[in-house]
């Protein structure tokens, strides 16, 4: 692994240098295993490796790509429009965390899009057909496919560039389109396809079967009993419950997600919520989003189907980023209308969640903020005094939902020490963790650390200025990737979910005197 200084020495934002060797170890993701390609029925299934010379593309790969492009251009106005109207003003250039972390010009959003715009010009515009290279058009070759694979799996679909673009050109859209095209000839990565395949089969990305899920739940309930002395229940697959709760599966299997999971369970117990978990819809996240709109729809269908089967009134969703992109901007369109559900109303406060009246799914931070605002929770902030907290907005909840104040409101109500990172790295300008959109693979670590550099740098700033030692966030991918990222660039800063902090501060009826936080550490140093 390269040292931090070495990585930064390679970066010169003022004279961008193109990466000479694509597919260097540490900078790309492995291809998907044959088993999972087959399980999902993906095109051109085969064993292959991006570092190989021969990618075993189908014979008519060029035809497939061009036909696919024509189809996508017809289906998505955004695709053609964004390819047509970019004026290359360069405002997006240094807004991409991958450019800021690598200095590779192809990571400027404008040039990332140019990788396919050049092909679009050559085959779909008059000027490109006539004047070719003079107007920036180029032939589609196998090397172009490889370049696409390298750079479009080096975009985390975070949409930051779109905030700064005077036309709102969203590289995420372009990346989604190119990934759809790559899928047509069987080029996708393990870290996307395997979770998607798991999710299709078992219900969740990690491939946890229902009985194993039940066991981890029992384990969590034991932990809560140790901490609080209370016997908490976690209803699973319970028909007739009022609310179905769906969280990313990492919450009940990974660290530090686990403590957020404990937080949910304690909160729901304390307010006596009539709800249920599901083992069929046991995943809020959706790696189909990073693959194709079709796969996204296939995975997402389970949530409404399960809500219907269980007969709940509405759905509550846990802390996750891309999950909420899908739920907020795609679910109702893809698998709605949810006319068998009711407009969500908080059974505790009576608040009607008008903002979710069609999709009928509410974000947990909206739900909890409403509880706190209506004084339904008793909280002891000092239990989080161990932490000096900052909040990292997840790309999707910030730039696709506008969920900015709810988590901040909650954090300020459950913590005494809260400091914001610099203004141009939070809210709609937040920096990605560098591992979103399916790029969180171990083999891609060097690239992830580079991509996460701007975020880590802002954390370092508040660490040095305010002594911040905890980054709160509401995204499973953040929780999985930030600890490693911060260890590398900052060190001494931990990562938690918002509902872990809630769980710590929550005064529960009949609980014993708490000596430890959810992590089993003393409440104060």
């Amino acid at each position, binding site marked *: 692994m390269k040292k931090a200084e070495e990585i*930064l020495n390679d970066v010169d934002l003022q004279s961008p240098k193109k990466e000479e060797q694509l597919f260097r170890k540490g900078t790309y993701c492995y291809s998907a295993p044959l088993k999972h390609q087959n399980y999902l029925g993906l095109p051109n299934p085969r064993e292959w490796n991006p570092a190989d010379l021969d990618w075993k593309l189908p014979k008519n790969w060029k035809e497939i790509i061009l036909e696919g492009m024509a189809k996508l251009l017809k*289906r998505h106005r955004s695709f053609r429009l964004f390819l047509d109207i970019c*004026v290359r003003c360069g405002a997006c250039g240094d807004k991409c965390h991958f450019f800021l972390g690598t200095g590779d010009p192809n990571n400027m959003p404008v040039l990332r899009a*140019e990788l396919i715009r050049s092909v679009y010009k050559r085959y779909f515009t008059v000027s490109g057909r006539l004047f070719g290279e003079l107007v920036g058009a180029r032939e589609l070759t196998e090397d172009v496919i490889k370049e696409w694979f390298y750079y479009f799996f080096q975009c985390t679909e975070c*949409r930051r560039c779109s905030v700064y673009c005077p036309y709102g050109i969203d590289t995420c859209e372009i990346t989604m389109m190119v990934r759809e095209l790559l899928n047509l000839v069987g080029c996708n990565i393990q870290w996307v396809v395997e979770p998607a395949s798991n999710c299709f089969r078992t219900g969740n990305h990690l491939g946890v079967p229902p009985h194993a899920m039940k066991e981890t739940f029992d384990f969590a309930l034991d932990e809560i009993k140790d901490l609080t002395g209370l016997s908490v229940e976690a209803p699973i697959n319970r028909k007739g419950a009022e609310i179905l709760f769906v969280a990313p599966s990492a919450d009940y299997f990974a660290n530090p997600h686990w403590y957020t999971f404990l937080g949910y369970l304690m909160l729901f117990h304390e307010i006596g919520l009539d709800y249920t978990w599901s083992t069929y819809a046991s995943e809020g996240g959706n790696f189909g989003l990073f693959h194709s*709109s079709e796969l996204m729809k296939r995975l997402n269908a389970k949530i409404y189907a399960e809500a219907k089967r269980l007969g709940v009134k509405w759905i509550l969703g846990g802390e996750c980023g891309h999950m909420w992109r899908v739920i907020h901007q795609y679910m109702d369109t893809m698998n709605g209308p949810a006319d068998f559900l009711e407009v969500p109303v908080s059974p505790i406060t009576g608040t009607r969640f008008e903002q979710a009246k*069609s999709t009928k799914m509410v974000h947990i931070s*909206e739900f909890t903020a409403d509880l706190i605002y209506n004084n339904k929770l008793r909280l002891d902030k000092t239990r989080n005094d161990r932490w000096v907290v900052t909040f990292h907005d997840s790309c999707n909840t910030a730039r696709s939902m*506008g969920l900015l104040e709810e988590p901040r409101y909650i954090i300020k109500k459950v913590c005494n020490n809260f400091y914001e990172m610099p203004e141009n790295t939070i809210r709609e300008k937040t920096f990605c963790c560098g591992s979103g959109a399916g790029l969180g693979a171990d083999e891609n670590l060097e690239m992830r650390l580079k991509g996460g550099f701007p975020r880590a740098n802002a954390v370092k700033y508040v660490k040095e200025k305010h002594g911040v030692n905890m980054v709160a966030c509401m995204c499973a991918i953040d929780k999985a990737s930030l600890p490693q990222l911060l260890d590398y660039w900052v060190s001494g800063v931990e990562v938690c979910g918002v509902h872990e902090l809630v769980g710590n501060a929550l005064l529960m009826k009949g609980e014993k005197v708490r000596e430890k936080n959810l992590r089993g550490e003393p409440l104060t140093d």
Partner: protein
Amino acid sequence: MPVLYASLLTLFLILIPGIGIGLFNMKALFGIVVLYGAFLIFISGVIYRVIIWAKSPVPFSIPTVCGQAKSLPWIRQNKIESPHTSWGVIKRMLLEVLFFRSLLRNEKGRLKTGGRLLFYRNLLLWFGGVLFHWSLFIIIIRHLRLFLEPVPSFVEFIYGLDGLFELFTPPLLITDLLILLGIIYLFFRRLFDPQTRYISISTDYFPLMLIFAIVITGLLIRHVQKVDIMGIKAFLIGLFSFNPSLPKESNTIFYIHLFLVATLLSYLPFSKLIHMAGVFFSPTRNLKNSSRMERHINPWDYPVLVHTYEEWEDEFRAAMKDVGLPVEKEN
């Protein structure tokens, strides 16, 4: 290299009417045929591009949200950057189209020693853009005095305001200077800012040079080799009433000016300059952030293969029963 191509092309374009009029006096060609042709290409080109865009649907609601969404009643919504009503979208679009709202956010990232990444607010691009586009807009408005009879009072007013300094006779127009300033800034930014230089291709330099040449020739026929405005207006009105007559003007620069404008008009629909129309279509800006409130319809939605609950339970039933999870069917 891209700059060279763009300059050669611009020079070539200047030479065409220069030779055509200067040597061969082809007034009918450059004064009538080319202009009608360019106008036709412009109108049909823009309509064609717009229809092509419009024929592709916006299947999903994908606004880029840049502020607090409508949420709980006590949370203050950013009604412009996260609009949930059409009125909010209109305000957002107006700010974007008229004042380049998004460029106002622009900042430059700089990597300092010690690995500190700093961001500096940078409004130069916004300023250059505003200077250029607004000047161009005002210049177009005041050219209406040569097309409309009687001259509408707002055109007269803007024209008067533009010449407020009363330097020279006829007065030097402020926007002529400002647009030059804008073009020069945008051009040299492309040349000397390393990032922008890297991303620039010849079709980025060319429109700037073309418009620069248009402004210069315009200035020349206004201030140096003056033309007969009466004759030109009569000629232009003749064109628009489909009763064209050959312009009496014999000033070659005037024909170069006309020809370059004609080039710009016919180039616009088939180049990046179509952003003029495209900006209104951008789904990340012109959609409401109301996708959980109102269902967005995808016209090409189709049924997909899903893993149903029944199929799923069939695989896991035995194990579920072992741990006491409820099932639909016993076996």
